[in-house]
């Protein structure tokens, strides 16, 4: 039942890690890092689904952790983007 997503999670982690290590452009690394994060979150999703019990469709504790993780990942990404634009984005917009 969860096997396709378990394999997908593993593949996303591998792909994301590859992008982070192999790319030279910072933005591409950032994208790859987010994919790596998606893979890790999906691991939690598979574990949550496997832990379905007590009439719940999935274990709520890993779900809550993933929600926290998604928000933190977004906050970190905005900070990284702001740094990137300050370093490489040329002049601050003047218009």
């Amino acid at each position: 039942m969860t096997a396709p997503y378990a394999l997908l999670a593993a593949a996303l982690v591998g792909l994301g890690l590859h992008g982070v290590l192999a790319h030279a452009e910072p933005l591409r690394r950032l994208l790859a890092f987010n994919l790596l994060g998606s893979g890790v979150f999906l691991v939690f999703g598979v574990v949550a689904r496997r832990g379905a019990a007590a009439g719940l469709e999935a274990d709520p504790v890993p779900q809550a952790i993933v929600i926290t993780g998604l928000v933190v990942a977004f906050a970190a990404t905005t900070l990284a983007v702001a740094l990137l634009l300050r370093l490489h984005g040329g002049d601050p917009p003047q218009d």
Partner: protein
Amino acid sequence: MTLALDLLLAGAILVVAAWTVAARDGFAACFGFVATGLLLALAWVRLGSVDVALTEAAIGAGIGGVLLLNAAARLRGQETVDPGDVARPWQARGIAALCTAVAVALAAVLLALPVPAPGLAPAAAAALPPTGLGNPVTATLMTWRALDTLLEAVVVLLAVIGVWSLAPDAAWGGRPGPQVPPAEGPLALLARVLPPIGLVIGLHIVWAGADGPGGKFQGGAILAAMWVLAWMAGLVRPPPVGSRRLVLALVAGPAVFLMVGLAGLALAGSFLALPAGFSKPVILAIEAPLTLSIATGLALLLLGPPARAA
């Protein structure tokens, strides 16, 4: 049927993700990233985690995609690559081998997991009735993982401070983002029609989070997106970052949460503990200012550092 559905979905996500990593230019890769996020939201629904699906759609693919795409558009052709950062052929082979090994090992571990896996679902279900909430995920976030939620709100605040600190000296205290002339045509129409609808839906999702999928972060992301849309059409101006009201809106949520947490220390015996029987009203009292702070914070993160003098 469901297996075919799952295989198709997982396969499509894998292809798009691989393409995102392999694409030639960053701008195209961002489209791949957004497509991945959208499909991942469907995958979360299939995994029985509608709350996470909502978060992925709102924050991962939605405002996260917009953020990265804007960055890619601004960086186009301007990004300089340090030649020392480019992987040499032997390094590339090593990286590929390492990543394959990591993926294979992770897959083996995941497939070897026992079914049903040991989990906290029974404990969560048993602890649900005293909270007065219907959604176990929200109950988890607001009660026994409340520290995570508090720190998550603080992380958003810290990210805003971090982004603001990258402002050029001359612009410090000014308004974030460039000045936008009033839009005409379809954008002007959408920016007037969509925000009121989005406001209702965003607040609905915050409210529905007590008993079904939803919550303050997901609803707050929608509210933030609506405000940014109005800004894109030149209908509203962001306040200067030095504005006292803006700062108040940003810290209100975490501050109220922290005070309730300290009150729990006095009234219920431990930090962030909620007095029995009052959980639901207290949780709603925390969520209202928290939604305001999160929506404000996410909108400011999308706009970037102050760019114009006050």
